[in-house]
């Protein structure tokens, strides 16, 4: 026997009570794990945003178009190193339920601006520039539908139609886009803007938004000001911001996820703190005589304190790790079905480390008061002899 056995046996001497406390901690950490995974996935765009990249959208909102001519005009501005653009296609594959993130882009400039994020084979890059009907498919999409280079795939749009009335375009898969960094999502499809622009029935020569690289992050503010002032008082005024700010503003439309996580998890933790803390207080009070016996046998106060804290720490770790495990299962199960809305949903090491720190904090917080009471207990009083 050792102190751990003593702690373990004390904790599970009342199995139902221990089970209920573990279950409440399990629920709290399962909620934490899932919500934190969502929060991290939502904010991944901010973390990955390049410091020297700006995004220009229509000032009304980002769903409104901008003239194609802005692409050339911004490219010529001082401080702009590279610029590209994209147009939302509103695509789906075979069935509107099979929604696909699909962009019409200018091939060369898009691959140049996003070169740090995506790994595209040189022959695929060349084919994408050369072939009018070419499509580059993200690895996630390719794996999902089993597409490979050489396949011809029909993609439909829920927004646009062709001049002949058809809502579907045929594309030739010329390459697979792989991520260069762990958090980068590849759940999308790119195709040539020129092919799309020539064949669509309306909104010709308009684009969705521009992405540009500045020569240095230090001049971002100056470039932003120049762009927005250039197009001020025109039919298509612009709003330019850093990519990070743009991504943050985009996510803010869904609500303050971080605040939601903090409030829900905070409420769960405070509740559990009170439940477990109160239960442990009662449990230790019930065991006053046994604690006094330990002290009478010669167990010093510090060791008794550690034994009690050990119980609450063990309780928090058992419930917490089980909850985190459940959260990992849930996020893994939801990952594919939510890939279009919350790409990169996963319980990562950062969340696990934070959860472990919370488990230790919970264990210490709930055990502190009963442990101090045990420490202070007078042996004679505990034995009923004082």
């Amino acid at each position: 026997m050792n102190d751990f056995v003593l702690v373990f046996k004390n904790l599970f001497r009342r199995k139902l009570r221990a089970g209920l406390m573990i279950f409440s901690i399990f629920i709290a950490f399962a909620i934490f794990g899932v919500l934190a995974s969502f929060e991290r996935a939502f904010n991944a765009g901010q973390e990955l945003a390049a410091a020297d990249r700006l995004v220009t959208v229509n000032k009304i909102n980002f769903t409104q178009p901008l003239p194609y001519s802005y692409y050339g005009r911004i490219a010529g501005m001082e401080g702009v190193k590279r610029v590209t653009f994209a147009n939302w296609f509103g695509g789906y594959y075979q069935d509107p339920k099979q929604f696909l993130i699909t962009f019409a882009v200018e091939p060369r400039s898009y691959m140049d601006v996003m070169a740090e994020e995506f790994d595209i084979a040189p022959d695929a890059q060349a084919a994408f520039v050369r072939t009018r009907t070419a499509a580059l498919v993200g690895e996630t999409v390719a794996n999902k539908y089993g597409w490979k280079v050489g396949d011809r795939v029909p993609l439909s749009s829920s927004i646009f139609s062709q001049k002949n009335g058809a809502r579907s375009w045929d594309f030739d898969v010329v390459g697979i886009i792989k991520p260069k960094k762990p958090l980068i999502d590849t759940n999308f499809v790119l195709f040539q803007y020129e092919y799309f622009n020539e064949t669509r029935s309306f909104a010709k020569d308009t684009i969705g938004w521009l992405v540009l690289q500045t020569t240095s992050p230090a001049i971002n503010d100056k470039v932003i000001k120049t762009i927005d002032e250039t197009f001020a008082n025109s039919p298509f005024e612009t709003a330019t911001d850093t990519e990070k700010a743009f991504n943050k503003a985009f996510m803010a439309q869904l609500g303050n996820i971080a605040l939601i996580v903090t409030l829900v998890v905070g409420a769960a933790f405070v509740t559990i703190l009170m439940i477990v803390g109160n239960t442990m207080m009662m449990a230790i009070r019930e065991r006053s005589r046994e604690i006094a016996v330990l002290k009478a046998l010669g167990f010093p106060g510090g060791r008794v304190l550690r034994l009690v804290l050990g119980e609450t720490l063990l309780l928090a770790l058992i419930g917490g790790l089980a909850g985190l495990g459940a959260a990992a299962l849930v996020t893994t199960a939801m990952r594919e079905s939510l890939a279009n809305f919350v790409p990169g949903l996963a319980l990562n090491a950062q969340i696990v480390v934070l959860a472990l720190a919370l488990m230790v904090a919970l264990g210490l917080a709930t055990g502190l008061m009963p442990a101090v009471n045990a420490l202070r207990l007078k042996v004679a009083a505990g034995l009923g002899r004082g």
Partner: protein
Amino acid sequence: MSDHALVRLEGVTKGFVKGQESIAIFKALDLAIPTGDFVAVMGPSGSGKTTLLNLLGGIDHVDAGAITVAGQRIDGLSENALARYRAANVGFVFQFYNLMPMLTAAQNVELPLLLTPLKKAQRRTHVETALAVVGLADRAKHYPREMSGGQQQRVAIARAIVSDPKILLCDEPTGDLDRATADEILGVLQTLNRELGKTIVMVTHDPAAARYAKRTLHLDKGQFFEKDLAA
């Protein structure tokens, strides 16, 4: 008073406050218990029998005077020093056994050894020996709820002697047992005293129990009176 006493009380004063009244239990109490003695302490309720055991066990403090056990002054020691003193020198046997219900007999007996540097195998040997001494070698894996009161008290005695303490302090060790079982337990204590030389101080109300001791001290009004119960 013997010069070679294992336990020595000199001018011990102890009292407590009840409401606004101060009640004295001992006034300048002296006592010497030599090594290998088996002393029964009797006296009316409230005479201070249990307080005496608490003082000897280092779980209560004197108001004045000195207590020396095995050459060590224990009055005035800090709580941690008293814990070390108890672990090294004192074995307690309580009226209601006070075993840990979630531990087996062997694990209960092993508890004091967790405070020693003994290795697991050494601890196991000590536990087996202690249980054999009290005649419960075959009950090592039984839980307290699976044992009779007498067996539980034997386990408690094994726990008290497993770390080979210098003195056993027994507080009404047979108070919760029937006559036959009480005699068994007292027989065990007598064997420990006679054959293993353990020094025992036993508080009891029962004259029959006191007869197992080598001598009986009667405590009344804060002073000892030695009595010969056999007479």
